[in-house]
């Protein structure tokens, strides 16, 4: 297990370095500059400002500086919000996004799991059909459409919950729900298929033949095996969720990372774009890492063969 983890860690660092490099060079080839009000700015002043940001130095020098700062966790100063550190900006936004993400994932996973299991166990009943319809909808309706619908119908028409803003727990419900729909759908679909597959396996018969009750058979024997493939979709789901937060945060006016990312792109805030990209990548790579480890914990075949290599 130790070597397995170490190997994953090394992959992780290499991936991050690659992303950092690609982002850096892409950013520097993108049209646009961090200057505001550019069309009216005297050229002399433009030069002075670029110098201030170190943008006048040759690209390789900038790259080395950038990497050096990155290693120490310094993402630099924002170009747009003069005097603010990108790291601080990210942390400001992260708490909202994390709340949103964690709620959406946990709610989505729990509901998805239950739904998928129930659908599989009650195969062919109306619960199963309902779950299937929900899954198709959840996968095909983008979260921003759902978000807009929820905000309008639940927020404005019914006035059950606030249609937007971020003031307290009740404000987190609709956006989390909008985001979790995809998670519910994906997890339910996967768990249902896998559950059906697993329930037909011989070892389930063995478990039943031992005289185990239905709950023990399902929870101890079926669920764990059905979960393994479901865990593999957690990484792409996290990605989907992250991109989902981009729009959901706009729709619900949530001061999260998605807001920050869109904002930094709109205003050509180079350091912020690079910072957020790096942070997103970091999150993603770490979540993939965690999924890998989880996978290893749940499936001994992976863990043990991984160790042998």
């Amino acid at each position, binding site marked *: 297990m130790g070597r397995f983890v170490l190997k994953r860690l090394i992959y992780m660092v290499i991936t991050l370095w690659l992303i950092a490099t690609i982002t850096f060079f892409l950013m520097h080839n993108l049209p646009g500059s961090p200057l505001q009000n550019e069309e009216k700015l005297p050229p002399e002043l433009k030069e002075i400002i670029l110098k201030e940001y170190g943008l006048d130095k040759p690209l390789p020098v900038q790259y080395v500086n950038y990497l050096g700062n990155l290693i120490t966790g310094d993402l630099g100063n924002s170009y747009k919000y003069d005097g603010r550190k990108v790291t601080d900006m990210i942390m400001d936004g992260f708490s909202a996004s994390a709340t949103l993400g964690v709620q959406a994932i946990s709610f989505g996973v729990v509901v998805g799991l239950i739904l998928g299991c129930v659908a599989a166990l009650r195969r062919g009943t109306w619960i199963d059909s309902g779950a299937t319809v929900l899954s198709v909808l959840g996968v095909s309706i983008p979260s921003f459409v759902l978000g807009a619908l929820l905000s309008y119908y639940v927020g404005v028409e019914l006035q059950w919950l606030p249609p937007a803003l971020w003031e307290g727990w009740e404000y987190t419900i609709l956006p989390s729900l909008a985001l979790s729909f995809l998670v519910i759908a994906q997890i339910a679909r996967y768990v249902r298929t896998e559950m059906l597959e697993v329930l037909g396996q011989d070892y389930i018969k063995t478990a039943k033949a*031992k005289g*185990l009750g239905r709950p023990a058979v399902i929870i101890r024997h079926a669920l764990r095996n059905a979960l393994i493939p479901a865990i593999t979709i957690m990484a792409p789901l996290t990605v989907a969720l992250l991109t989902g937060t981009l729009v959901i945060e706009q729709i619900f006016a949530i001061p999260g990372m998605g807001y920050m990312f869109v904002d930094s792109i709109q205003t050509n805030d180079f350091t912020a774009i690079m910072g957020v990209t790096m942070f997103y990548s970091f999150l993603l790579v770490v979540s993939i890492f965690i999924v890998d480890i989880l996978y290893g914990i749940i499936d001994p075949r992976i863990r043990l063969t991984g160790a042998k290599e």
Partner: protein
Amino acid sequence: MDQNNMLEVRDLHVSFQTYNGEVQAVRGVTFDVKKGETVAIVGESGCGKSVTSQSLMRLIPQPPGQIKSGEIWFDGKDLTQVAEKDMEKIRGKDIAMIFQDPMTSLNPTMTVGKQIMEGLIKHQNMGKDQARERALEMLRLVGIPSPESRIHQYPHQFSGGMRQRAMIAIALACAPKLLIADEPTTALDVTIQAQILELMNDLKEKLETSIILITHDLGVVADVADRVVVMYAGKVIETGTVEEIFYRPRHPYTWGLMGSMPRLDLEQEKELTPILGTPPDLLSPPKGCPFAARCKHAMKVCQQEMPETTEVDSETHKVNCWLEHPMAPAVEPPAEVVGGGSK
């Protein structure tokens, strides 16, 4: 119920509802198993052996399966009538089962030890430590070396033969009165097969368990079984002691079986001659003898009506065949079948 009988199956009917209609997998099976006895069920694949054996433990998937009628008497209870909760108490404790493929019948994500302990904790009210002790004992009993470390391993770390041993350990952990082994050696290679059979024979003696052994291999039957039940198309067409079936088989299907099945106990030279034709479609089984279409000796009556069960030679040897009818012409079994036994 006969005092000597461990199990009595009476006129068991099991069907599956499919898109195409009702598959009548088991159509009136009757047999019994005495205490300490090993009964072999033989027959071509698809004839209902597994369905019969799983029905005994009420393990057929439901839906689509259903026990339509019949009785399964075990320990003074008709298992077809027992509540599911009570059935759970019988499974694994009084009746245990070993499946064909040891590669797939163990849970890949649970240690072998835990899989053995599970049944013990459930049925014997054992604590974890006690169950572990017993599991170690079982592993030792089924001949797994260094059980102390093996107990913590996962099935994928075991070889095929080892896994089947582990399966046997699971099955026998609670010292069941009846062990059902559904082709326990089919998936194993030949040398291992012999070891597993030997182990089963050994344990049967030690634990005084009755065994229902489902197999393709007549050699296995000759080695371990006391009695044989021959099944065809969901029906029992002949039963008898090993002696009777091997030396005086009466049903043309049994003859065909003798010629077509491998025999672990015989010299390699014997040539296998498959039975021509295919078994009937169980969606719409024929109303007469199901073997009639493939039978060289079939008469008009065979197509029209199912023959009665007839006792021949002894009260243990029974056969369902029109050839036993007094008006039927005398037909001799092929010579290679009768002389084949080496006992």
